[in-house]
């Protein structure tokens, strides 16, 4: 029996469990399916985070290898395979931003507050992904500017709680409340809008 709260399977696909089981069996064709399904969004989110195409490609490769090697940690009762993959990808991107390698490259992690996260889809995308992008975009647009900003700074910029507080000139408690409320509203919008992958 699942104890997952409402909205926890926003990105679930019907065959998540079967695909994961094939990956556990070391089925390279299953990795091919996984790659075709998520390579675009994995690369896109990494590029958005690190802003360097070569680094994003390297981290995307590492993401898929980590998923391949760590697939036994995935529990389809707990969440979607997409969330598992994208959490690995985002963590790799943020780890890179905070790494010595990145600091030596002299690249900034700060993102201007007016750099809006909900941008148009660029390049070719599958129809279902475009629909999902629109739903997420709609959910983000429903957030207040301060809520959008903290999600942007934390998710794509990798800023810590205290860094966000400093950059926004707001107390730690206020930033925490903004983050919590932003995610609660996002979750409600995505669950209501049926953002489940077609």
């Amino acid at each position, binding site marked *: 029996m699942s104890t997952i709260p409402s909205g926890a399977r926003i*990105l679930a696909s019907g065959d998540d469990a079967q695909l994961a089981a094939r990956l556990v069996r070391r089925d390279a064709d299953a990795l091919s399916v996984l790659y075709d399904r998520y390579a675009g969004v994995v690369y896109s989110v990494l590029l958005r985070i690190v802003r360097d195409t*070569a680094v994003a490609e390297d981290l995307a490769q590492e993401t898929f290898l980590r998923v391949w090697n760590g697939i036994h940690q995935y529990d389809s009762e707990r969440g979607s395979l997409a969330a598992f993959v994208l959490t690995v990808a985002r963590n790799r991107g943020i780890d890179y931003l905070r790494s010595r390698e990145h600091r030596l490259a002299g690249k900034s992690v700060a993102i*201007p507050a*007016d750099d809006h996260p909900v941008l148009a889809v660029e390049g070719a995308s599958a129809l279902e992904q475009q629909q999902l992008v629109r739903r997420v975009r709609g959910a983000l647009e429903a957030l207040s500017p301060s809520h959008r900003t903290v999600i942007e700074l*934390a998710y794509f910029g990798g800023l810590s709680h205290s860094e966000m507080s400093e950059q926004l000139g707001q107390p730690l408690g206020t930033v925490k409340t903004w*983050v919590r409320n932003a995610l609660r509203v996002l979750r409600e919008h995505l669950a209501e809008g049926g953002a489940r992958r077609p």
Partner: protein
Amino acid sequence: MNCSDHRENLELYALKALPAAESGVIRGHLEEGCSSCGAELAAIEETLAAVAFAAPQREAPVTLRGRVLGSVRPSRVLPVRRSFPWKPLGWVAAAAAVTVLFIEEARVNRVRTEMQSLRTVVARQEAILDVLSGPETREVVFGEGASGRVLLHPRRGVLLLARNLPVPPAGRVYQMWIVPRSGAPRPAGLLAAEPPGRAAHFHPAELDLSQVAAVALSVEPPGGSAAPTTTPFLIVGL
């Protein structure tokens, strides 16, 4: 601490935005097997993963598929011959094989280097394309004498397209500067040699456009300067 204390920080924990000590406390609580906090964390991670779809969607590079799939396929195991029918020939064959391996390794290294430089070129072209076509780009046209355009993109950088530039004095070069509203001008690269009077110069940078006052060109010694050593002869105000 009870579950409600941990719940207050679960979002920041999922975002990796907490200090290590606080993260460790929550991780310990989750590892103890708190199913309700675990389920709540899963829901938060699912919501955060959806945010990934708000990033501008790009197609993955064509080379990535091969890199990913190629790196997990089991390597081919060649059958091992127990012995050579004629041992001297076996040594010759082994030496030849080692030579081939060295040549192959050198070839792979060369291809890797070429791919890296190609990636750099492509990334630069993509950045310039974004500057030229991006909705966030700010464009300023300038004229009288030297004329042209300056295009600024908040995440990609500055592109200067100019014509009718005077020839720089012998032994001197042109250097571009990003002039902030407050503070010292920032070096933005030396202009590459172009046909007389023309320049197309791109400087990758992240910019807060509201804080950029102007883009300027000055005459500098070869190799450029950390700060302008001459009064800029071209200042394009924003």
